[in-house]
């Protein structure tokens, strides 16, 4: 279905109308600051005080939270279990059972890693949920980024949902031919080839068709192209972007040359 080919949710909100480059700057600076910035609570604070309010501003609050949690929760659980039990050099034992002991250092490390990942996933999701891929592509191209590069960027963002749809159809077709895809490990491994074959071949066919379609629309033409979609931008947004870049550079600087 075309409607789930990208993560974009169509809503009328100021966030959706922001210039894609501004959102790109917000996402990347949040990610970098979350990872490099000082303090144990920083990533948590960024998520709660910046990302969540932004998503509510963009009228995509529930979807944003739901998807972030669904992506990050299994990973976080895994981190907590592994790190709290096996973190090397942990001394402060919080709790002990059988041969295991949960150490404070491990829990702290897991928390830090999990919140930083949550901040990163959240920042990406905010961008993807509020930005139509073609708007991003148009804007980047207009700014002189090579169309091939933006195409690669945007199509990578889209390829996962596309592949997932295709894979589901192929699995359905093979199950209809009596292929057992559930059950034993052997059955599952046996089911891989009939899936991967058509998936790879189908993708190759797609690539060829796509290349022709792009060429037919003068994708590689050297002239300056005008665009039907007008992507709004403003001086204020430019200032915000410069501010974000400076802030991020400062963070990196502090990290590299601590005072």
């Amino acid at each position, binding site marked *: 279905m075309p409607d789930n080919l990208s993560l974009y949710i169509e809503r009328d909100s100021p966030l959706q109308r922001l210039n894609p480059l501004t959102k790109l700057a917000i996402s990347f600076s949040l990610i970098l600051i979350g990872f490099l910035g000082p303090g144990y609570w920083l990533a948590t604070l960024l998520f709660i005080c910046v990302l969540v309010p932004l998503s509510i501003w963009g009228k995509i609050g529930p979807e944003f939270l739901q998807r972030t949690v669904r992506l990050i929760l299994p990973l976080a659980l895994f981190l907590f279990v592994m790190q709290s039990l096996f973190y090397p050099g942990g001394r402060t034992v919080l709790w002990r059972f059988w041969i295991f002991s949960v150490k404070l250092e491990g829990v702290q490390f897991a928390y830090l890693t999990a919140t930083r990942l949550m901040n990163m996933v959240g920042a990406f999701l905010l961008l993807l949920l509020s930005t139509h891929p073609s708007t991003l592509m148009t804007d980047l191209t207009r700014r002189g980024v090579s169309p091939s590069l933006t195409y690669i960027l945007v199509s990578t963002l889209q390829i996962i949902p596309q592949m997932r749809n295709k894979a589901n159809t192929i699995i*359905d077709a*093979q199950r*209809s031919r*009596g292929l*057992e895809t559930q059950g034993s490990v052997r059955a599952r491994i046996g089911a891989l080839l*009939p899936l991967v074959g058509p998936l790879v*071949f189908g993708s190759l066919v797609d690539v060829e068709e796509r290349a022709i379609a792009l060429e037919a629309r003068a994708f590689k033409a050297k002239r300056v192209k005008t665009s039907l979609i007008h992507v709004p931008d403003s001086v204020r947004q430019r200032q915000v972007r410069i501010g974000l870049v400076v802030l991020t550079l400062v963070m990196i600087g502090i990290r590299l040359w601590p005072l």
Partner: protein
Amino acid sequence: MSMRIAIENLHFTYPSGVVALRNVTLAIEAGEQLAIIGQNGSGKTTLIKQLNGLLRPSQGTVRIGDWLTTEHSVAKMAARVGYVFQNPDDQLFKGTVRDEVRFGPGNLGFPAEKIELLVQQALTLLELTDKADVNPYDLTATWRKRVAMAAVLAMDTPIVIFDEPTTGQDYQSVQRLAQIFQTLHEQGKTVIAISHDIDFVAENFSRIVVMGQGQVLLDGPAQTVFAQAEVLNSTDVEPPQLTRLGQRLAIGPVVYTVENFLAALRKENDMQGER
């Protein structure tokens, strides 16, 4: 064991919230030749995916013989219901046509001799014998479609379903397809096809189900279905040209093939001659 299909009060809603089927009740006897027509998005594909359990009812039941689709895996259902997908490239993965055709019956666990026999028959039926050792992807799309059909027919299921079998096929291939449907009919199999090719449907199917907005609007032989121009119009189906011509000429019964058009026309002329 008779492979009667019994669909009762079937409702289906996709996870996205789209209501695709509303209260469909349909009984299809073993050996029937049934075509499903209706506008894009009317729920045809959704309906036939219920028959082998690819989709399961939100409400209501689907029975194939004595099996409820909810109680068996799709792989098990494949022994009773063969399903030819619209796009052959969704299923082809073996290195040769013969291996591809062998895959389905192999999954069903038939003895080796039976598999070879079924493969041979399916290849012959689809005129693929001389292409048996070719890689399916070296064939054109039309021929790949035939390979996909052979691959399903070789499973020797009592019920065979086709989603849009005629798209992209030239006249000769469509004629061949009609012969294949006839052969399947003679073997006592139930044939169900979705098609937008109204002439093909008129000429080859004894029963037509018309769908619109997730419901069965009409169900019956061509004669009665094509008489309902208004209902057909509501789901963007145009009766065959011959039917419309016959109606404009007011030549009595509803006609839909060249033969019954000519017969009706002669009768009309005779009657006028007598007057």
